[in-house]
């Protein structure tokens, strides 16, 4: 009897321990989730409050509201010229993502499906480019951009500096490395027989790339497109250094326009930040399965 009772007790004890660790886990996860969600939640809360309410309240921005209002949103939509800045973002982000995917898929195709001397070196160079912090090249880059002539309509001032083309170019340059790395790993998982079969059927290199490999890479391309969109969309750095015309900046850098020298209306800044975050949130919610896949793509070779 006792031999039976002991295991039973042990099961009970295990279950209790299990429940305890479960509770602990959930507590930990809830706290973590809250910490991560806090900036967003607080941003929403702050954006709904009138500035005078925050100022007059002794607890400042952490006080309880006397009223909540959408006035800040109405104000920034009417006064911040944000449509222009969203348009600027689109003008930068969309071509940059397309260019990046196009170029990197071609490089990846060449180094994963063809065997030639410099395969590894090329891949290494592209991957190593990822490790270079953009900050170290910014000053030479500004000087270089200023010295490189560019024709209209790509450039309004005859130079690469202070132009959309320049910012698109540097994004493409920096993102191509990562995309090449991921795509070449992905392409390596595609059976070589497909390429060989196409070759026997008389397909040229470009036909194999566009008709055989690219369609098979769709999941990888979709995942990368989502990732790249969020990264380039969120860029603040290049936009800050490569534009000196305030009206050309994308929405991220233009948020600074609302932060004056003498007066910063925090609720308004919060409101426009929330609006600026919407596109990335929407993209993420709609395409989140690609997003998660994108993060692990190329992590394991098949």
């Amino acid at each position, binding site marked *: 009897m006792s031999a039976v009772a002991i295991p039973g007790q042990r099961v009970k004890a295990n279950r209790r321990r299990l429940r305890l660790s479960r509770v602990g886990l959930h507590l930990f996860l809830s706290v973590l989730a809250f910490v991560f969600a806090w900036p967003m939640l607080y941003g929403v809360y702050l954006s709904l409050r009138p500035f005078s309410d925050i*100022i007059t309240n002794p607890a400042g921005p952490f006080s309880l509201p006397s009223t909540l209002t959408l006035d800040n949103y109405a104000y920034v939509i009417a006064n911040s010229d944000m449509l222009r800045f969203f348009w600027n973002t689109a003008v930068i982000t969309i071509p940059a993502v397309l260019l990046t995917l196009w170029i990197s898929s071609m490089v990846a195709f060449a180094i994963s499906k063809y065997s030639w001397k410099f395969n590894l070196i090329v891949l290494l160079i592209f991957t190593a480019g990822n490790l270079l912090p953009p900050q170290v090249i910014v000053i030479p880059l500004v000087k270089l951009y200023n010295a490189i002539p560019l024709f209209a309509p790509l450039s309004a001032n005859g*130079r690469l500096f202070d132009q959309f083309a320049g910012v698109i170019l540097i994004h493409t340059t920096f993102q191509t490395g990562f995309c090449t790395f991921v795509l070449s790993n992905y392409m390596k998982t595609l059976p070589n027989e497909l390429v060989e079969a196409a070759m026997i059927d008389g397909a040229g290199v470009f036909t194999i790339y566009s008709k055989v490999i690219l369609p098979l890479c769709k999941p990888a391309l979709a995942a990368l497109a989502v990732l790249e969109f969020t990264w380039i969309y969120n860029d603040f750095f290049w936009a800050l250094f490569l534009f000196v015309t305030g009206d050309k900046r994308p929405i991220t850098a233009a948020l600074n*326009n609302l932060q004056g020298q003498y*007066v910063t209306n925090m609720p308004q800044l919060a409101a426009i930040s929330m609006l600026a975050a919407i596109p990335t949130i929407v993209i993420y919610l709609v395409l989140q399965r690609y997003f998660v896949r994108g993060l692990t793509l190329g992590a394991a070779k098949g």
Partner: protein
Amino acid sequence: MADIETGLKGQVSRREVLKKGLVGAAGLTVLPTVLAACSSAASTPSATPTAAPTPTPGAATPTPAAGTPTPVALTGALHVGSNHSDPSEKKGMDAIDAAFQAATGLAVTLNTVDHNTFQDQINNYLNTTPDDVFTWFSGFRMRFFASKSLGTAIDDVWAGVKSNYTAGFTTAVTGDDGKVYGIPVDYYPWCVFYRKSVFSDKGYTVPSTWTDFIALCNKMKTDGLTPIAFADKDGWPAMGTFDILNLRINGYDFHVGLMTGKQKWTDPKVTAVFTQWKQLIPFYTAGFAGLTWQQACDTLVQKKSGMFLLGLFLTGEFDTADPSGAAKKDLDFFPFPFLGNQYDAEKSLDAPIDIWMMSAKSQNLQADLANAKAYLKFWAAGSTQVLMYKANNGFIPTASDADTTQYDVLTQKAVQIVSAAQKITQFLDRDTRPDFAGANGMQSFLLNFLSNPGQDLTKFQQSIQDFWDKLPAYTG
């Protein structure tokens, strides 16, 4: 070294700049030459000297607001770079550009970049594709870029508008090479702000001596107030306190010498400044190193703090925080307390001057040159500067013909305090070389001191001096 001395000379003689400027601005003198200046301002630059169809208004009536330039049609384009990014300042810029268009028929292309980014980017901006004219600051900051050939000398423009300024202003806009590089358009003084209602409710009196000041701080503390609002997240607000303490303790000449490298940071006189400063730190807002000045100012709006040493631009935050204007009406200020030494008579203070400059590397400058000069001349008129003043009362006009009847009580008081001052400085980061004042230099040194006031001052001052000594030679 010679260059630095030239700079120093410029600063020494600047002592009279605002004093004289303000006497003029107070409407005591209406210069008849103003009219001549303005009409020449409008006629010289035009490539097409056809007068606009509108009749010249009041060309013969010498009213104080006679700065209205003679309408002359301008053609072509003009690119204007502005750091006026606050909503009120934007409105002021729009009003001025509209007035310029009304007067000349030329619509300017305005490029507004937020103030802090504009300042951070200035090197980039001036070296790459700057606008034709741009907003900047007088003092070392102007001379620095002028000496790097990033500004265009505008002696001809200045010659036309000089009569609308008191003589001292010339030094404020003269570069190391003796040429004029800027048009002064506004200034603001640094004073100690407080709420009249708080002082009257608690029976406080405005302190004029250091002893009174400290006693008042202690009293405020026991009354549950933060005696002195303070914030230094952006690095520069603390410089205001250093400036005024150094001016009060060691006088104007030593301060200017220190700024230009003639005096050493290891000097015991500097130790005295930091030692004096230590007495104030316990009265500061908690966590000031992470606060912006706006946040500190809000505590004054909320009557949670008693006093705040800042520039007059602080009124802008009051306008935003309390649109009803009640809080601003309750606002008052006094000059920083005196220490009872021989420098009291100087009544010195920081009162930085803002200017407009003409860039050198703008691609359009050759084509726009005439328009750019016309625009700068337009800004030299009191009527133009008053438009900005009306939009934001933090910008006090510099032109002699500015209509002083438009001024509010605070501005009139500011004009008085600055007129009384025998010596005027521009603010630490405008009076010394930018690489010394910047984030790696004084900004971080002062933050370091404030967060650790008990440290070994000898070592601390030595580190500042070492930093100065390691800076590359300033080749003016």
